[in-house]
């Protein structure tokens, strides 16, 4: 068994350790956290034969640079059109490569996408909180945010030369601009006209985003008479509207309860590719019925599982 150690040369904001997250604790104010783009994260692990949910690194538009101090380890970089640079070679994300002692791997945003994932053939050591190494952004609990000069340890580090090389990027992992959603649960606080505006207008993503949520720019969709609704439980993907009519899509580290009305809730299967949008991308909402949302989800899950299996077994 060998160990690899990596020194963080540089880490942008919101670069964190993530795993499958900690679902089941929303009743204690704890959101599931976990990767923003769960699909790409899962594919990174599958690509090097890791168990699903194995801890890895979530890389934001801020980028990340790692220097291998000791040992050698194979890793997968999956998600977004990020660029990896190592040994004066420029490679795209969606690739498996091996990092040797003395080499530096620098990952930067490329032509598309907002999040990319590093999975290691080995066990990335990190602080666990409530049974998960996923970082909860606002508290920093869990594996934590990466900072310059920090040393990462990967135990049981392996090299997998037979897996090295590019892996296919499925079209559904690219940014999604049409978000399927169901109305509500607080659509009753919006006029018919406002609801119509919401589902027919073009919105724009903004740079006001973090792991809690992403604010949209677009026509005002102000609620009526919603000033004093008691705080209600919140689901990831709900679109919360503040009193001045600004909509925010709630994401991995969302607050678990809140008093702003939720005009719609985006289907979970559309969130992973939605978060790969960049600021000022156009998005639109398309309402579906709850029954349709289940049908869509099941089809997506089948398609994803088939792709993941092929990748894992290659």
């Amino acid at each position, binding site marked *: 068994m060998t160990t690899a150690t990596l020194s963080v040369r540089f880490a942008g904001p919101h670069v964190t350790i993530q795993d499958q997250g900690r*679902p*089941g*604790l*929303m*009743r*204690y*104010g*704890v959101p599931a956290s976990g990767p923003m783009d769960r699909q790409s994260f899962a594919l990174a692990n599958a690509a090097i034969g890791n168990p699903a949910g194995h801890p890895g690194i979530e890389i934001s538009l801020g980028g990340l640079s790692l220097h291998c101090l000791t040992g050698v380890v194979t890793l997968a970089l999956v998600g977004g059109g990020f660029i990896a640079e190592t040994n004066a070679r420029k490679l795209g994300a969606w690739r498996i490569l091996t990092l040797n002692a003395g080499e530096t791997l620098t990952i930067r945003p490329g032509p598309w996408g907002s999040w990319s994932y590093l999975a290691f053939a080995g066990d990335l050591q990190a602080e666990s909180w*409530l*049974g998960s190494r996923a970082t*909860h952004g*606002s*508290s920093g*609990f869990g594996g934590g945010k990466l900072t310059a000069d920090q040393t990462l340890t990967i135990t049981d580090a392996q090299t997998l030369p037979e897996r090295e090389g590019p892996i296919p990027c499925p079209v559904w992992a690219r940014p999604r601009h049409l978000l399927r*959603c*169901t109305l*509500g*649960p607080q659509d009753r606080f919006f006029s018919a006209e406002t609801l119509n505006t919401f589902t027919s207008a073009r919105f724009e993503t903004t740079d006001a985003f973090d792991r809690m949520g992403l604010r949209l720019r677009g026509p005002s969709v102000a609620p009526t008479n919603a000033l*004093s*609704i*008691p*705080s*209600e*439980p919140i*689901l990831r*993907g*709900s679109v919360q509207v503040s009193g001045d009519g600004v909509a925010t899509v709630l994401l991995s580290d969302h*607050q*678990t*309860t*809140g008093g702003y009305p939720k005009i719609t*809730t*985006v*289907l*979970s*299967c559309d969130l992973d590719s939605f978060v790969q949008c960049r600021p000022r991308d156009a998005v639109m909402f398309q309402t579906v019925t*709850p*029954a349709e*949302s*289940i049908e*869509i*989800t*099941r089809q997506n*899950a089948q398609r994803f599982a088939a792709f993941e299996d092929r990748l894992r077994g290659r």
Partner: protein
Amino acid sequence: MQPTPSAPIFRPIAERAVLVEFGTALDQAAHAAVLHLDQALAATPCTGFRESVPAFVNLLVEFDPLITDHPTVIAHLRGLLIVKTTASAQPTQREVSVCYEDSPDLAAVAEATGLPPEAVITAHLSGDYAVAMYGFAPGYAYLGGVPEAIRLDRKPAPVRGVAAGSVIIAGAQCLITTLVMPTGWWIIGRSPTRILTADPAHPFLFDVGDNVRFRRISRAEYEAAQ
């Protein structure tokens, strides 16, 4: 149609949840119905049950959409509502220590309520609190039951960097903070009692529905307990 504790509204959310609404405004009967359904669901979960989240007047029920759907879950929940409860267990009683010395807002609360600071403390200690729900941040438990005499609206603007362990009040709610966070609530004390216990077997001090009493401690006791 308005939901009531005996005739809730079931609102499907996306592909994976139902929000059961027992009322539209803060109401004891609606909250009791939330806790009742939450307990019944814990005892008899539906197929594909993932988690439930109790709040003031509604309960969120999340399920696995690959193995069940909204109508099946709603039918299960309706079934739980018509089952009469066997006398529900007595709520667990919890105690939270609080030091009122050196509290940034005690004087302001005294001024706003027209009470001497000592009477504010007495009022706060006299409250019978219950954990209504968690929210905002990990371990932020909203305790209902602040006595009428010291109920104040939030401050006009939040104060940044309020320390973890602050005992804060606004309206009928009291809360013991777990993180350094901004808050517009009134800071009337600080507590060495940890809501995030760091005990893996019981990581949160309270469950929703627990009863809470505050116990006054001195600055020396607070410092010794830190």
